[in-house]
């Protein structure tokens, strides 16, 4: 188990290093950053000044190792536009994105676990098919469009929920629902498949032979085993949600990390862009490791290995 985690940690570090390289290459794709930063009306002197000020006159390799060296120590550089430390900026915006992501995950689990369990228990009934249709519809739904529709219906027509901003907890409901939509189909299908497999297993027959109550058979004996893959996918889905929240944050004007990245892309603020890519990638890798850990907690067979 320990060896397994050390191996995972090494892979995670390698992934982080690769992402650092990719992020650096990506931001240099456009050629001369100094020209785009200085703006369209800049003179050659302005451009030279920018180039010097941001260290863009150094050889690319020097810039690269400077970025990798500092980023490894947690120093993500300084934003051109905001004139502040990137780590501070991300730290300020992260709570909004995390709140949004966790809200989305909770909503997704609250919807897909019961749906998946009921669909499995009523396998091949009308209800089961309905759940599968819902999953199919959810998969095809463009999230930004769903967000706009919800805004029209619940924000404008019914006036129940705020349309944008982060003033109150209600502000997170609509974006959370939209974000959850992207994860619900996968989580529901996985829960259903896991429960069907568990319910057909020998240990469930034993549990029934012991005369246990239906609730205990379903929720204690079957769900515990069906939940193992669901937990892993849920953690991965949270990673995808944090990465994908850029669209939702834009739709609902939530000033999270995604919004920050979007602003920075529009302003050629490349230190912020490459830092956000790196941070999201590291969070994703961390979440997959967390998923392995949770699996080990849920599945005693993994603990001894």
């Amino acid at each position, binding site marked *: 188990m320990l060896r397994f985690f050390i191996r995972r940690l090494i892979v995670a570090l390698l992934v982080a290093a690769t992402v650092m390289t990719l992020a650096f290459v990506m931001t240099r794709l456009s050629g001369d950053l100094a020209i785009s930063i200085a703006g369209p009306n800049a003179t050659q002197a302005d451009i030279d000044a920018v180039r010097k000020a941001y260290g863009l006159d150094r050889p690319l390799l020097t810039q690269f190792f400077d970025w990798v060296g500092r980023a490894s120590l947690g120093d993500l550089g300084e934003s051109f536009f905001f004139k502040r430390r990137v780590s501070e900026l991300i730290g300020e915006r992260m709570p909004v994105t995390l709140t949004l992501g966790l809200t989305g995950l909770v909503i997704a689990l609250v919807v897909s676990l019961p749906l998946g369990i009921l669909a499995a228990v009523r396998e091949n009934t009308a209800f089961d098919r309905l759940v599968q249709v819902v999953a*199919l519809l959810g998969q095809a739904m463009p999230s930004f469009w769903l967000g706009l529709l919800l805004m029209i219906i619940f924000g404008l027509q019914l006036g129940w929920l705020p349309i944008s901003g982060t003033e109150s907890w209600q502000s997170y409901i609509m974006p959370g629902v939209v974000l959850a939509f992207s994860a619900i189909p996968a989580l529901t299908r996985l829960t259903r498949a896991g429960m069907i497999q568990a319910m057909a297993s020998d240990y469930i027959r034993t549990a029934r032979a012991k005369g246990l109550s239906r609730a205990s058979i379903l929720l204690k004996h079957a769900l515990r085993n069906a939940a193992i893959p669901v937990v892993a996918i849920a953690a991965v889905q949270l990673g995808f949600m944090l990465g994908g929240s850029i669209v939702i944050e834009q739709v609902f004007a939530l000033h999270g990390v995604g919004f920050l990245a979007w602003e920075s892309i529009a302003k050629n603020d490349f230190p912020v862009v490459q830092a956000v890519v790196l941070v999201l990638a590291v969070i994703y890798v961390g979440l997959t490791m967390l998923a392995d850990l949770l699996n080990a907690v849920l599945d005693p067979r993994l603990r001894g290995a």
Partner: protein
Amino acid sequence: MRRGWRNAGTWAGAIIVGIAAFCAVFAPLLVPHDPFAQDLGKRLLVPFWMPGTDPNHLLGTDQLGRDYLARLIYGCRISMMIGVSVSLVSGVIGITLGVLGGFMGGRVDDVVLFAITTRLSLPVVLVALAVVGLLGSSMTLLMITLGLLLWERFAVVARSTTMQVRNLDFVAAAWCAGCSRFRILAGEVLPNIASHLVVVATLEIALAILLEAALSFLGLGVPPPLPSWGLMIAEAKDYMFFSPWVIVIPGVCLFVLVLGINLLGDGLRDMLGARSDT
């Protein structure tokens, strides 16, 4: 009964995709108006089911007076082009990596797995936005960028199915018969994993269409004045509270097209007997 219900879904998907493909190919012949021609005197005309409609513009006009139906048909062309070309690019990358990893095993496979892990850790929307934002938006750039980002499902499926096929008897027989690696890959492995890859391709087309719409919606996808559905929704956003149909119509088209592709993909999966976890 279950089969019939499944078949109905597959047929519905096939019909939707067929109509979309037809619109995409024959767009110039189908459109009633020039999708780029503005008529500021006829801005935000309502579609045919609402009172005060203009019979010349079945689905009304947008905020610049451009015919909505014409723009939708051209938008369909853009979506289909993006979907197909992205899945071609990502298919070539993903299948190459996956088959190599699955067939060679060992170090090669470790590298392929690492590439997949790294790719999964990258936030797709953000990276695509950044690339397009830094290099300037164009259709070609969008296709290449998304193609470079969406290959991991191809790779995962190609890798696992290749591993299964590699261990089958007829492949061993080909080895013994002295066939070269290339012969075995092209002649034995690829035909046997093709059905799985077709299913993945449909899923990737759907995903690419959704992503293109999202990027265009954020203003960093297809450049205006091209009528991408995502861009149409973005441009109409300011009017949606007064004329909801301006975002409802392109959104429904997007939703129905992606649904159709997914239905067709599910049907193909059942027909070709591909594994359900693809």
